[in-house]
């Protein structure tokens, strides 16, 4: 079986050198190309046709997210493992959405890189253990199921509900509460979100049910 051809993409030469040493110590893997930014990665990919790309996220010219998207559009069979310092959900979400098959923190390289490459080549998605821990602890909010606790309407939102139920328009409510119409709109959006409703009529219905309005 021929070696798995790997491309390293990172704007820090020292990281690429470190990775090269690590990969050299793993049987059956070979670094065939390196790139220092997302654009270069696309270019080198076309030339060297790697099987596997280890991709940094924040890079000059073009970041790893955009580069992953473009490479996978052209070479859908290539596998991409994101490698980053960032443990923020935003970065994890975005590069996985761009098509990367895994996410490894630079911190976890030594312990988990071989495993990550193998699992991804076997068609699985890989998230390194440190990130999984963060998810389990609820520190990576966006990766965990959404926060479903329903918040109560604040006294201010209740005021707006009452005035809406009394038939007042946005502008009239604004004057009454000494705020700008745009702030009223934002309260209304928040109310709709909390009550899980989509129309003023439904807010009015809620107000009546709660006895927020006099029907006289």
């Amino acid at each position: 079986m021929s070696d798995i051809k790997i491309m390293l993409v990172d704007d820090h030469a020292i990281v690429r050198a470190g990775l090269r040493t690590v990969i050299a110590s793993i049987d059956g893997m070979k670094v065939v190309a390196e790139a220092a930014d997302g654009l270069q990665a696309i270019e080198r990919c076309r030339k060297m046709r790697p099987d596997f790309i280890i991709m940094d996220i924040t890079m000059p010219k073009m970041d790893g997210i955009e580069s992953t998207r473009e490479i996978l559009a052209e070479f859908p069979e290539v596998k991409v493992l994101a490698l980053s310092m960032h443990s923020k959900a935003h970065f994890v979400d975005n590069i996985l959405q761009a098509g990367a098959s895994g996410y490894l923190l630079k911190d976890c390289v030594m312990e988990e890189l071989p495993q990550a490459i193998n699992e991804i080549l076997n068609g699985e998605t890989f998230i390194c253990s440190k990130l999984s821990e963060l998810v389990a602890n609820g520190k990576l909010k966006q990766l965990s199921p959404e926060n479903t606790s329903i918040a109560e309407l604040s006294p201010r939102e209740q005021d707006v509900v009452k005035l809406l139920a009394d038939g007042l328009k946005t502008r009239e409510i604004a004057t009454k509460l000494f705020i700008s119409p745009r702030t009223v709109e934002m309260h209304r959006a928040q109310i709709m979100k909390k009550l899980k409703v989509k129309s003023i009529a439904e807010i009015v219905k809620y107000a009546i049910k709660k006895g927020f309005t006099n029907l006289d």
Partner: protein
Amino acid sequence: MDFKNSELLRYSNGLGDNVAVWMHISNLEGQVVFWNNTAESLTGIVQEEVLTLEREQKGQIWKRLFKDEKHLRQMVDLSREVVESNIVVSGLVIPVVSVDGTLRMISWHSNNLKDKQGQVIGSLTLGLDISKQHQAMSVIEENKQRLRGLALKLSLTEEMERKKVAMDLHDTVSQRLAVSRMKLGLLNNNSSLDDEAKKLVKQTNADLEKVMDDIQRLTFELSSPLLFDGGMRAALEDLAEQTFTRHKISFDCSEVNELEIPDESLRIMIYQVVRELFNNIVEHSGAGRVELMLFTDKDVASVMVSDNGKGFDSNMAHKQSSQKNRFGLFSICERVEYLDGWVDIQSSPENGTSITVHIPLVKTDKSDV
């Protein structure tokens, strides 16, 4: 008529000519019947001329002095309302252009005059030349604007500086540490190492991991990469998490629509405003829950931060703003006003606080401070 006019003139009685205040008297029909020395010097039109003009057609004099239609109407309405509605006008500012073209800001005070029987027979109007004060005020306002601009620029510079330090840390220290850890890992895999040495390598590796975590945390506190690479909502959500999680305050972030704020310095500024609001909440409110909502359309970027804390009397917010505990709010209002935005403060004791900041996205040119 003549009798009434002479009755009116009784009021001037030499007094009018000796004060440094514009003074004129009009009769019930609005015809000017008295015009003092100061009025003469401020307008360049002498009493005789005024009275002749007014005899020909009442209100003529105002057409001479108020070139602007709106000001003319204001002035005519002023004397009419004073005699008709028995009101007193005080401090209404209407500018006058004198014969030589000088523009003067005049603060008008007017009340009606009654005869012995208590019948309204005319009005007495005083005009205070406040051009100098007005000019001084606009210089003060200009300087205030300039200071606000400078403060804003300073805080932008600070944020960029923080970003630079954070990036330096990220680019040099963190990356090098990560590589060192890789190398230690390789060393640990080396079979020629004895157990003692392997243990030491492992410990060192674990120590380095801690250092990396600390640096990572510091880097984020210094400057959120999300602010520059991740978009407004992601950055604010992350800020909320950093601020509130350790204080055990629950939070929720939402967005009315997903438009991104195009201007980076505006994003930075909104980020700073929200950071200030968050700090206020942690320090003063005693809140257990915070809600943040973003609303950006093509004209305005808005952010609302609400908490269920102890609140304050929002009528007092501006008066207290210079006090220490509300200084944050004061500086927010200053910054937002400079950008032609506005702040809605809703709060009452025991009922939590909701502060909404709106900033127009259409730039007015204030860059040259």
